């Protein structure tokens, strides 16, 4: 009798696991042609999304919104030529504007192909002159991946464009907001009609329109407004047409960097070391440990090496294949990125380092197809990026993941605090002049892909000022 009962329980468990695992495959795998994924459509429905938001099934809502798909900056176009506002991530209205944008984008990504149409470059520019919000991203995205971060699977826009470089949400339509997408690789533009409400978008735009102070507001043009994206004569610099041009110097708080890895007496914090060993799956009882001449502590276990330098740099390396810290069971790009960001959060928390990081490496199809995924993150302070450029490091966090295993991980730990004093950036043109002097060989023409304000950090401890950063094509 007892044996029969155990058999029944096992049978029931098997039946349940059959449905659970089978369902997973049917929903996640590409068994369905584009636009016919019945399960994806159910998942994208408002009811299921509302329920999953309550229970947070993905467990990565925080990560995706803060690190992965939040724009670097939102530019509010009020419809009056240069009457525009640039919202950095620490602006009091940024979260509100970003929430409104995310809601409309989710709706757009759920749109059917009937609501999507290609547009001309002129139409794209004309939207930026109307009432709209331009979402400025640090990186470019694979369209399917981007929509997945918004909770939408099987977005039909991905059959029109495989890449998202820029997004504009327009309120000029009489009924609902319209989303415009630019693919910089192909130079193509698309328009997606939505069924979302226009009220929230209009209230954000109206807020800025009403609070506009002509005397003190910065004048913002786009590069295409000033025709800096078109070459003339011996013009040595061509600017990406979407670069916002701030005609006056900008004021930013002067910040001070610190190394949280060390205690006040310049020694390592033993509890921090214990936490890091635990995160990297290194057993304190079986590993070997030694200290290098420069004070770097090295932990070795089997094939893995973890180094902690007094300068606040952590380096992890695992040499063997199918080894290292196991991050993801399902090695999809979406899961890998979410878990990589979670992992980075965990490490930053363990060292009490700045947790305000953003993803700074492109998430395009090249990234997805690559067997080894390289993901970079950088710090943000006072709402703008911290541009790290030390002798050895170009990013705050650099990780390599292979088949769900973390193979390499490098992070420089820093905290940034306000000093209470402010300093002005130079004029943007000075940054362009410097870029020419640095990169242009024999008077060759340079193409500036990005021009933005950032704190410069050379890795030294001390005061940091904001300045213009130019990212040059090909460098």
């Amino acid at each position, binding site marked *: 009798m007892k044996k029969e009962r155990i058999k029944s329980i096992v049978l029931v468990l098997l039946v349940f696991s059959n449905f659970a695992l089978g369902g997973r495959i049917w929903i996640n795998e590409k068994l369905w042609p584009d636009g016919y994924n019945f399960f994806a459509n159910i998942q994208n429905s408002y009811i299921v999304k509302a329920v999953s938001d309550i229970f947070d099934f993905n467990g990565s809502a925080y990560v995706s919104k803060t690190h992965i798909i939040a724009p670097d900056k939102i530019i509010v176009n009020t*419809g*009056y*030529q*240069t*009457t525009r506002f640039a919202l950095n991530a620490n602006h009091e209205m940024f979260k509100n504007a970003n929430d409104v944008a995310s809601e409309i984008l989710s709706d757009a990504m759920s749109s059917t192909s009937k609501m999507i149409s290609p547009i001309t470059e002129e139409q794209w520019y004309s939207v930026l002159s109307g009432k709209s919000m331009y979402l400025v991203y640090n990186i470019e995205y694979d369209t399917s991946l981007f929509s997945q971060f918004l909770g939408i699977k099987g977005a039909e826009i991905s059959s029109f464009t495989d890449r998202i470089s820029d997004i504009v949400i327009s309120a000029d339509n*009489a009924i609902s907001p319209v989303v415009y997408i630019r693919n910089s690789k192909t130079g193509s533009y698309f328009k997606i009609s939505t069924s979302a409400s226009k009220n929230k978008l209009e209230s954000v735009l109206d807020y800025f329109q009403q609070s506009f102070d*002509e005397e003190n507001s910065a*004048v913002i*043009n786009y590069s295409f*407004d*000033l*025709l*800096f994206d*078109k070459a*003339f*004569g*011996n*013009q*040595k*610099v061509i600017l990406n047409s979407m670069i916002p*041009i701030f*005609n*006056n110097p900008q004021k930013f708080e002067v910040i001070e960097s610190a190394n949280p890895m060390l205690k006040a007496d310049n020694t390592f914090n033993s509890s921090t070391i214990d936490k890091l060993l635990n995160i990297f799956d290194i057993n304190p009882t079986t590993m070997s440990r030694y200290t290098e001449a420069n004070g770097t502590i090295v932990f070795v276990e089997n094939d893995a090496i973890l180094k902690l330098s007094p300068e606040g740099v952590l380096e992890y390396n695992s040499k063997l294949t199918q080894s290292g810290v196991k991050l993801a069971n399902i090695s999809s790009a979406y899961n890998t990125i979410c878990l990589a960001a979670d992992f980075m959060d965990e490490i930053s928390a363990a060292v009490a380092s700045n947790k305000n990081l953003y993803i700074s490496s492109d998430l395009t199809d090249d990234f997805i197809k690559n067997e080894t995924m390289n993901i970079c993150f950088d710090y943000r302070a006072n709402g703008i990026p911290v541009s790290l450029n030390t002798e050895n490091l170009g990013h705050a966090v650099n990780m390599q993941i292979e088949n769900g295993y973390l193979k390499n991980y490098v992070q420089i730990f820093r905290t940034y605090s306000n000093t209470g004093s402010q300093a002005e950036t130079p004029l943007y*043109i*000075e940054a*362009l*002049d410097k*870029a*020419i*002097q640095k990169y*242009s060989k024999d008077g060759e023409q340079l193409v500036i892909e990005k021009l933005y304000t950032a704190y410069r950090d050379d890795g030294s401890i001390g005061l940091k000022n904001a300045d213009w950063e130019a990212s040059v094509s090909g460098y």
Partner: protein
Amino acid sequence: MLKKLMAIMLVFMFAVSVPIVASAYSDTLPGWVTGNTDSLIYIKRPESHWASTSDKTYTISAVGAEGTYVAVYKYDASSDTYYLVKGATQIGASGLYSVVVDLTDDSNVFCVYAWNDWATQPVQISINKIKKSTVDKLKGITVTIRNFF
């Protein structure tokens, strides 16, 4: 004889051009100001050297040779004189130049004045300032016509 004539002409040209170049960065320019080249600077915005806006400011953009100085003057019809509104800026290695000028409700005629050691180039620009209410009305009319058709 020909050499003498050429020498006299050169001295004359030098005597005329030096005061012009030397006086390039003054507070005023005469309404009839002229230059001796059109290759120092090229105005990008406004492309046709004329524009309309409802904003209180306007951004003029240009591209020019490195080392060229640029200043902006505003025209006063009553005295037939241009008055300096934006002091001299030297164009850097990028060759790009932009400046924001304030607009008034009346006439907004500017002279973008470029010069280097041997040449000067004035470019006249006219900005027509229209009221925001007029822009709104125009937008309203556009919507109405669109709806009508």
